[in-house]
């Protein structure tokens, strides 16, 4: 008699844990998609080992949502002397952000609460295929990424100033190429893949 509720409880706990280990996505009415990655990525032994190396670890996110493709990149480096995590992100809109986090707990908190724009606009379906490549990272590659990004922004006038439709097509595709193609230069430490149902904000 006692066994059945225990089994149900275990199943519920396993489901909750599995859901925690999944990214969460939000699709807004413009068709923009944001993605929040699970902090289980940071707890993986391989990732933890590399994060503790004092060298940068890059998380390259690739997203497919029907015909739309998107992505973002998060770079994390632990500064041994300052004993803090330096985090930099480049998202699908070309927006960059830098944050300094004083502990592993704060990093995990930031990680599991930050919604990264992975598709600027135009997504029509809520089903997303998400891939994350965890890469050992070279800073020069990032410098090259920024240079390419800058060229694209210059050549387009400005992606942000471009009409929404245009931004989604040529501009966003180029930014995505830059984020992804300049990153897949090294053998990943580890790769993750999920299919996620985005929560729709209407």
């Amino acid at each position, binding site marked *: 008699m006692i066994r059945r509720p225990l089994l149900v409880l275990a199943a519920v706990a396993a489901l909750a844990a599995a859901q925690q280990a999944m990214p969460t996505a939000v699709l807004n009415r413009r068709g923009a998609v944001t993605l929040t990655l699970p902090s289980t990525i940071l707890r993986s032994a391989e990732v933890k080992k590399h994060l503790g190396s*004092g060298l940068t670890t890059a998380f390259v996110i690739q997203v497919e949502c029907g015909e739309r493709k998107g992505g973002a990149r998060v770079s994390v480096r632990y500064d041994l002397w300052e004993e803090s995590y330096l985090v930099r992100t480049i998202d699908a809109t070309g927006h960059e952000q830098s944050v300094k986090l004083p502990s592993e707990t704060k990093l995990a908190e930031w990680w599991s609460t930050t919604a990264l724009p992975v598709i600027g606009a135009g997504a029509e379906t809520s089903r997303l295929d998400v891939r994350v490549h965890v890469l050992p990272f070279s*800073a020069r590659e990032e410098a090259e990424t*920024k*240079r390419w*990004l800058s060229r694209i922004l*210059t050549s387009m006038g400005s992606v942000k100033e471009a009409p929404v439709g245009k931004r989604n097509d040529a501009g966003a595709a180029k930014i995505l190429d830059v984020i992804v193609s300049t990153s897949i230069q090294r053998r*990943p430490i580890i790769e993750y893949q999920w299919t996620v149902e985005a929560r729709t904000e209407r």
Partner: protein
Amino acid sequence: MRKFLISLVLVLAPAGHAAAQDPDFLIERFAVSGVRYASPRIIVAESRLREGRSYSESDLAAAIGRIERLPFVVFAEFRLEKGTVPGQYVLAISIVETKPLFVSARSYSSWVSTDTFADPASLPAGEMPEPQTSVVDYRNDFLTVGGRWFVGARGVVHVAAELQREDRYSIGYTHYDVFGTRASITGLIAYQNRHIEGLPGVFDTWERKDDLTYQALASVPVTANQSIRAAWLQASQPVPRSEPSAVPGNFRYTLDPAEVNRYELAWNYDTTNDALFPTRGTLVTASAAENEFAFAGESGAIVRDQRTVLSVTTDRFIPITARQTMTGGVDLHRRGLDEVRAHAGYGASLWNPNTERGDFRFEAQIDRTWLRGPAGARTAVSSVRTGLAFRNAWGLLRLDFEYVGWRDRE
């Protein structure tokens, strides 16, 4: 012009900003782990990094590539640790090395499309022979068994037995970090059983049991990714000499050995990440070689002459996914005839390579070679090669298939 300058500023400004954010790490000491057979000093020397200097992450990434190109290293990893003073670091280098004994086996099957001409005597009078295309198949199997022993902090003795049609046994010594300069020198002596199968009535089977080859090589790094290489080789070359045969008016040939020397000076630019299966980076080599060759003079005495060979070879490895790589390159050679070779290839790891399971790869390559002879005759030939390769800490196995054909002649 103004528009161009504004664009230039916009392009360069973020790069400079990025460069400012690109941290440099002042390395006060190296700590090498994972070495059971190899010498830590050689690992540090080949990284071309020095204590007391600052390096960016990309410098460190390039240094990992240089260490992983060493023939006795399977995998290398860097980690920073706090140094004795704030802002200074210990660079911990962790490596997985190959076993001291290694095996390399390769089976190479070729199908070569050739044009043959019928004997004019067998044709009706006045009819010119037409080329008949046929495919000739060859198969070569190679097996190399060898060992490597580290001598002192900077030396490696390597021995190898290459078992093939002409067995070859070699012993060599490489001294790394000569006088603390990061340069290396190698000396090698090889003994080979030379065997050339005779043609009945033309020349007898030729065998030479005391054939020794001497080789010396020095490599001096110029920058982190560039080096100058000087090489010398002395080998024996079979020289055909003709003499009247028993059939009046006919000649038969004998082969005599002649010592010849070859000298080469090369510039090398290498940013690849692996000596055997590179998945990224560029490799460019420009070399000038002075090759001595011997031939029989009119009096029958052996005469020596020199031929200068100029070569430029380029290879670019572009990762398209984590396990797939595209390759491309052009080679130029000038050696009596001009040769231009363009090639493109594809390689894919069939599983995620790791140090326990090794790396199992599929490879495919197409190439086209254009040749121009001294008299201006031109020919072009293409080939396609595909194969499987497996390597781990014990060695390398390869299975290759090649078709050579699609010839054009002018």
